[in-house]
């Protein structure tokens, strides 16, 4: 760690990890309710549990990006954060807003629009938080060195905030509502978040493989071009059979199929950089997370996304467990693993220790990743059976749910494995090992 102000990233990383734990816990509760439907029906209805699970996910991922930005901007811009104090205030405000939202949900106060359930005041709070963040980071960028990594990251974060503004518009016509909803959800995960992913991976590759920045930047530009080229019009894959004009089918089919390409490019990029630059960096687990992120994102977003992205297939699979399978692996592979990669990389520097608990961290990696992969498989099977019985044979929804109950039990099992793996990861990141109390600062590897 070269710059004192990078330390503010610690708040965000710890905050994100806490919310991560909560997200997984509520996921497991939701998975339990799926198989034991009456379990908490009196105290905490399923829709609220689900809401906390998904909202905690989004909030901790965003918090992780904020932390990542506060960590990497000083190093990229070669200057201190504009105002570390503002960054800390921003953190607490964000955490309070998230907490208030959860309390509200428990009392049934929400707008009922998936992922965007936050009541209006909370949404305004989120915008205020975003403005504080953007002010702080943009000022940092402006006074320092401008690199491709920091420029792409900042442009992407600006658009994350701008696109969120669509969340304020909620037309009563359901088809129109969905159009705007996807402007946020799709253009986030398949647009600007993907740029964040590309730039953070680029940063990690520069730092860990020692490949020239110039080479990495070229790859970054190519990944950015491919992402925007395919992702923006790829939105069409959500406008198939929901009352939107028919031409969206052609647009969605062509462009969203091509969305696989940038994810594939990221796999090639990461492995090529590691192959070229070598694996001498001491933080093996951070490297594992980075490589794993590109691969699992390719499977979750690319392969599982493509599986139901053609309009003729989506006609049958829309909103079934196939979607849930894809949602889980894509979010995990791309953005959960991305955050864990940068956390694993940054924490040793931030806390001035050797990369500690690597073994435990890597165990966590394998258990969690296998758990999520297995969960994806069970949900995919459930989804295929559900699609066949419900959409092709026309069976009743609840009768079908009975037929696939076994898969839901298996999902719960893999969910518990994930919970164990995540415990390992958080333990490895947060709790310092007894033996490694050597407070030796590890040297920054040459860029």
């Amino acid at each position: 760690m070269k710059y004192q102000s990078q330390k503010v990233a610690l708040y965000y990383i710890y905050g994100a990890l806490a919310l991560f734990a909560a997200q997984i816990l509520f996921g497991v509760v939701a998975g339990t309710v799926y198989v034991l439907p009456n379990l908490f029906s009196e105290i905490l209805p399923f829709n609220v549990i689900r809401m906390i699970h998904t909202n905690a996910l989004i909030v901790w991922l965003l918090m992780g990006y904020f932390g990542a930005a506060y960590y990497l901007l000083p190093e990229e811009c070669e200057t201190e954060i504009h105002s570390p104090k503002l960054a800390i205030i921003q953190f607490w405000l964000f955490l309070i807003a998230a907490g208030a939202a959860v309390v509200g949900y428990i009392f049934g106060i929400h707008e009922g629009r998936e992922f965007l359930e936050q009541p209006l005041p909370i949404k305004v709070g989120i915008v205020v938080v975003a403005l504080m963040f953007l002010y702080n980071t943009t000022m940092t960028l402006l006074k320092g060195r401008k690199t491709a990594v920091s420029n792409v990251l900042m442009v992407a974060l600006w658009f994350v905030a701008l696109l969120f503004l669509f969340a304020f518009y909620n037309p009563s016509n359901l088809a129109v509502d969905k159009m705007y909803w996807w402007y946020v959800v799709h253009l986030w995960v398949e647009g600007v978040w993907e740029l964040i992913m590309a730039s953070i991976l680029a940063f990690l590759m520069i730092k860990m493989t020692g490949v020239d920045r110039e080479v990495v930047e070229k790859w970054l530009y190519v990944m950015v071009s491919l992402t925007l080229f395919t992702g923006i019009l790829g939105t069409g894959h959500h406008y198939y059979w929901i009352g939107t004009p028919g031409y969206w089918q052609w647009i969605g089919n062509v462009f969203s199929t091509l969305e696989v390409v940038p994810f594939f490019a990221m796999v090639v990029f990461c492995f090529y950089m590691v192959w070229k630059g070598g694996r001498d960096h001491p933080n093996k687990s951070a490297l594992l997370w980075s490589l794993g992120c590109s691969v699992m994102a390719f499977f979750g977003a690319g392969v599982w996304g493509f599986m139901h992205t053609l309009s003729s297939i989506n006609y049958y699979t829309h909103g079934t467990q196939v979607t849930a399978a894809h949602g889980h692996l894509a979010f995990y592979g791309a953005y959960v693993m991305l955050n864990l990669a940068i956390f694993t990389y940054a924490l040793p520097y931030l806390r001035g220790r050797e990369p500690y608990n690597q073994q435990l961290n890597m165990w966590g990696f394998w258990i969690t990743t296998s758990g999520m992969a297995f969960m994806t498989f069970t949900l995919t099977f459930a989804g295929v059976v559900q699609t066949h019985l419900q959409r092709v044979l026309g069976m009743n929804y609840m009768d079908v749910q009975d037929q696939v109950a076994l898969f839901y039990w298996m999902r719960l099992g893999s969910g518990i494995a994930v919970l164990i793996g995540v415990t390992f990861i958080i333990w490895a990141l947060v709790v310092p090992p007894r033996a490694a109390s050597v407070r030796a600062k590890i040297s920054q590897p040459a860029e």
Partner: protein
Amino acid sequence: MTAQTQLSSGAEDNDTASWGGLELLPGHPIMWVLILSELVVFGAFLLTFSGARVVDPQGFAQDQMQLDRLAGGINTLVLLTSGLFAVFAIQAVNTGNICRSRLWLVLASLGGAIFLIIKMIEYRAKFDAGIGLESSTFFTLYFLITGFHALHVVLGIGILMVVAIWPSRINVETGAAFWHMVDMVWVLVFPVIYLVR
């Protein structure tokens, strides 16, 4: 990747700063990334069009009768000529004649404008005949493909204009590369949508 290994073998290992061979092409390498992507998309659309035609040959044949082949042909000539002007613009900037390069760029974009006017007339005739974006699969694809292409012409005119303001060599080459891509796509769209029946 194959290009990369091929190019770097033999020479000194210079691929540290290379674009995998794209830097050997005229214009900025990122423009070539864009050109490749564009070709993939338009190629996919043209093949989709052919595939959809197989599903409904009669419907496609009936609808295709209503296309204006003359307008399509004239537009091909217009774009080819405009592309020629873009080549002249590069030649001019290569010989250091900035003024003439600017002139050719303006003339090239003028060609683009004429293309758009003819396209508008064509579309207007369709709309007047009560044909729209959702009349049939044929017309959906017709409007989508030619419409996407026309949007690229608009964008291309913008790029040529910007390049005419700052006509450095790399800028002119990059702008012209985009313009030629637009030209080339039309040269493929025209036979596939207008002529083959």
